């Protein structure tokens, strides 16, 4: 509620009518456009392909075929590819959270003298989108510098580690840590706590809300990832679902493909619905970072 339209405005009949009908129209619009396509995948998954092709506007399948979902799961091996996604997204999440909480703690609380240069170099990467260094990043994972030619291409590390270098999460964490009252650290130091105990006993327990927001944003974006895993992992068996689906679509029946799409979109959609409060807050914050 922003206060643009006041209580006395709302008592006027024309205002009520215009506002009410606009809001209703918006509701219908976002209902159809937001939920519609997801429900369409449900319908498509349960309908025989023949019916999809001859009568695309049918709202309900004439004979819902619940076995189709299971068949897509086993024939297209959706479960296998989703497990790959879980492994890639989970590892990316863990790497990113460990790296950003530790780094942000050092920058915000320990504050070494060279910290501001490190932070500056990290913030600078916010302005260079990842796709610009896509090619060089690929050559880097093929032959890690200073390791005598170690290649992490085609391993999960090639997805996990680059995800850990995420400037925005560090910015988010550092801003939050900056808000922790300094007296807490002073008191802890008087009690003889060192930097490690302050990290584990003060900073981490206090950071649950920001860890939740950062975790959700990280997991959702890792689940959606497409271009980088396609480039970094050449083995088709190890591809995440988002990379595997378009390939599977080329030689599968329509209703199987749509069932696969439905199964692939459910986890992030369910995570979003379950944690929408945190995500809505986190997304609102991303726009105000500037």
């Amino acid at each position, binding site marked *: 509620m922003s*206060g*643009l339209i006041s209580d006395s405005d709302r008592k006027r009949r024309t205002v009520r009518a215009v506002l009410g009908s606009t809001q209703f129209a918006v509701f219908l619009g976002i209902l159809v456009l937001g939920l519609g396509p997801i429900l369409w995948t449900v319908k498509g998954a349960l309908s025989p392909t023949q019916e999809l092709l001859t009568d695309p*506007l049918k709202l309900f399948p004439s004979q819902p075929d619940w076995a189709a979902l299971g068949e897509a799961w086993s024939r297209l091996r959706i479960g296998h590819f989703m497990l790959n996604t879980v492994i890639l997204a989970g590892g990316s999440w863990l790497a990113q959270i460990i790296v950003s909480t530790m*780094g942000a703690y050092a*920058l915000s609380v320990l504050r*070494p003298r060279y910290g501001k240069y490190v932070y500056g170099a990290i913030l600078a990467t916010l302005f*260079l989108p990842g796709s*610009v260094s896509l090619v060089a*990043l690929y050559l880097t994972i093929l032959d890690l510098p200073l390791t005598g030619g170690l290649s992490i291409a085609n391993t999960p590390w090639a997805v996990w580690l680059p995800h850990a270098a995420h400037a925005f999460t560090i910015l988010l964490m550092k801003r939050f840590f900056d808000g922790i009252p300094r007296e807490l650290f002073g008191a802890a130091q008087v009690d003889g706590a060192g930097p490690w105990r302050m990290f584990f006993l003060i900073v981490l327990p206090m950071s649950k809300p920001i860890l939740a927001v950062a975790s959700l944003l990280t997991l959702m974006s890792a689940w959606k990832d497409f271009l980088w895993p396609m480039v970094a992992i050449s083995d088709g068996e190890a591809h995440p679902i988002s990379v595997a689906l378009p390939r599977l679509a080329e030689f599968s029946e329509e209703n199987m493909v749509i069932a696969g799409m439905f199964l692939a979109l459910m986890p992030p959609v369910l995570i979003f619905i379950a944690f929408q409060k945190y995500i809505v807050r986190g997304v609102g914050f*991303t726009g105000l970072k500037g």
Partner: protein
Amino acid sequence: MTAVLHKAERDAVVRPRPARRARHPYALASALFLAPMVIVFGYFSWWPIVQSALLAFQRTNLVDPAQWVGWQNFANLFADPLLGTAALNTVWFTVLALIFGFPVPVFLAVVMSELRRGGGLFRVLVYLPVAVPPVVAVMMWKFFYNSDYGLLNGMFGLVGLGPFPWLQDTAWAMPSLVLEATWAGAGGTVLIYIAALTSVPKELYEAAESDGASIWRRIWHITLPQLRGVLLLMLLLQIIGTFQVFTEPFVMTDGGPEDSTATVLLLIYRYAFVYGDYGMAAALSVLLAVVLGLLSAVYLRATKTWSST
């Protein structure tokens, strides 16, 4: 007590000057806590940026040793007729995305901010498309656009319109991609605007109302000017984002028909991972980075001038 102290003494009490070159109390711990971050950024962010600039002047195919070739990669790029096409397509995508995608989220955010009840449900519905993985979203719309059994032609057919060549025609393909991209991205922007709207001071609206300003005038003279900062920021982020569009043309049309949806990033991908010419791909990446950098600079310059007037 401070008041009776001389200035020099007071300074010493309040702010003891650190002895020069005193060791930082947590020098070792700081280094250990920073190490993982510096290592991953070094390997996967800073070095690839430097390497892109170097690669742009090299010829490398990963088999033979890399060779310095000067500006040859750039010369080859400009000789490729596809570069102009891809650049124009990318700009066209960006312009269409602004026309489709810029006003709608502002409108939705203003309407949704005025809800007394049900705001949570609205926000969930509006963000749902953003939660759908982009590849699935693109594949979905590919079904909707299908000329034989697509949902869209079926629906337009009911009212006697069409059939439309959504993805088959060189003039239609790009707007069709933008429509999908707008559907997939608008929800996030709406949430950002709603968050920004809550910080507009209520007193402004109250003052305007007591001066007799109508709702429309309040939107025009208070809401939109108050949103100016975030609107400009989102404008820049959207332009930067759409300059890198990849998934839509790659999955939906593979750049076709007749290269009408070939974008800059699709070209980078082809140079590197289809033709194996990493130098050319890096050169085009550097060009893209320069353009994006110029855009950001112009933006920063412009917002500085606007905010000071």
